[in-house]
């Protein structure tokens, strides 16, 4: 064998090609395995990460807006989208059914500025037709103040109105005359207005401007 290789260069070349072919094959196999592992790991990780990223924060689809208020009417119906269903599963929330009512959430004032507990806000105007409504303040983590002096929620039965039927609610850390709610302790907070037994469904029509209370920021002196 040694003699053949040393005596016949053509045969030597063929032999070397033969000797290197399996090595190239192994290299290709290793590359293929690497690329398959790469595709599976990157694909699965990207798919799962994007899925969990999508179900954090606000519901991505079906938002209806009126002034500073947002609602997701499809949450309480069979038309709920898969993302909202996944978000409810993650949060444990139980939405109001479309036949029960509708809830609106405000995170900013009428000028689009985030609600800040250092400021005083005035909610003024009317609410859409409903048998009852409730207005509740939540802190940045979704908690509501509790206790007899909490003053974090009002219902339509508790509200004081002026002669024209309009209401005015002050949100402030300091005591206020009339309808007053204490802002939460966290910097950012949200307001939820829930309409119980209301014809407002959000699926067929929507509210005109002025149908919901305005949220006006007054002073921010803390």
């Amino acid at each position, binding site marked *: 064998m040694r003699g053949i290789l040393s005596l016949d260069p053509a045969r030597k070349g063929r032999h070397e090609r033969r000797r290197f072919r399996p090595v190239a094959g192994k290299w290709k196999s290793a590359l293929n395995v690497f690329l398959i592992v790469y595709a599976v790991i990157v694909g699965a990780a990207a798919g*799962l990460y994007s899925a969990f990223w999508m179900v954090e924060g606000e519901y991505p689809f079906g938002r209806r807006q009126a002034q500073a208020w947002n609602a997701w009417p499809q*949450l309480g119906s069979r038309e709920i989208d898969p*993302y909202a269903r996944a978000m409810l599963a993650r949060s444990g929330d139980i939405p109001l059914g479309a036949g*029960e009512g509708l809830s609106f959430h405000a995170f900013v004032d009428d000028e689009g500025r985030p609600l800040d507990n250092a400021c005083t806000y005035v909610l003024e105007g009317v609410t859409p037709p409903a048998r009852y409504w409730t207005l509740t303040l939540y802190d940045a983590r979704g908690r509501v103040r509790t206790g007899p002096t909490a003053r974090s929620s009002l219902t339509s039965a508790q509200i004081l109105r002026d002669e024209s039927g309009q209401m005015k609610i002050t949100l402030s850390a300091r005591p206020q005359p009339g309808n007053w709610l204490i802002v939460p302790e966290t910097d950012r907070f949200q307001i*939820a207005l829930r309409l*119980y037994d209301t014809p407002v469904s959000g699926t067929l029509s929507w509210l005109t401007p002025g149908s919901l209370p305005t949220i006006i920021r007054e002073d921010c002196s803390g």
Partner: protein
Amino acid sequence: MSVFARFVLATLCAIILAAIAHITAILVMPWTSANHAAERLVATSTAERPQLISGPGVETWLPLPDPSVAVAACAYDLAEGPFRFSTSSSAMMHSVSFHSRGAGVFFAVTDRATSASGLDIVVMTQEQRDIFETLPAAEDDRALRVVAPEASGFAIIRVLSPLSSQAQSALAEAQQASCVIEPLREPA
């Protein structure tokens, strides 16, 4: 095929796999999440009265609870028979809704739909509904019958307490409803 072409092909496969993993994760989340309300309410399936989960002065796991509303729940499994949810007539505003993992809220009604004796709703599967149609009708049974999209789910009763002084009444009323599994009689 060059190394670069193989890498591009693998990246395309990764993108397709990512899309499949994303869609699958979103679709199975209602069945796999331990936080799902249905999961938390499993223990209530044996109770014959709704169990309080939120309300005025009640500690709750519900996100963004309404402190003016008493909320009670009972889970059901229709494997043993239809599920009957009944409330007595009341002056307090209340509503009832039925939920499942896959369909979300599939039926909701307020006390405006009550008869003189209160709300009476029977949830059943389509098969049970078909059997029920073959049975002789009971004269005094005027329950509202709802076909559930899935065999298991939960019912929620909400009782509004418009004034602070009504909070205890709302809590009591939410727990006074009845939730029972009523096996169908065999057809004659």
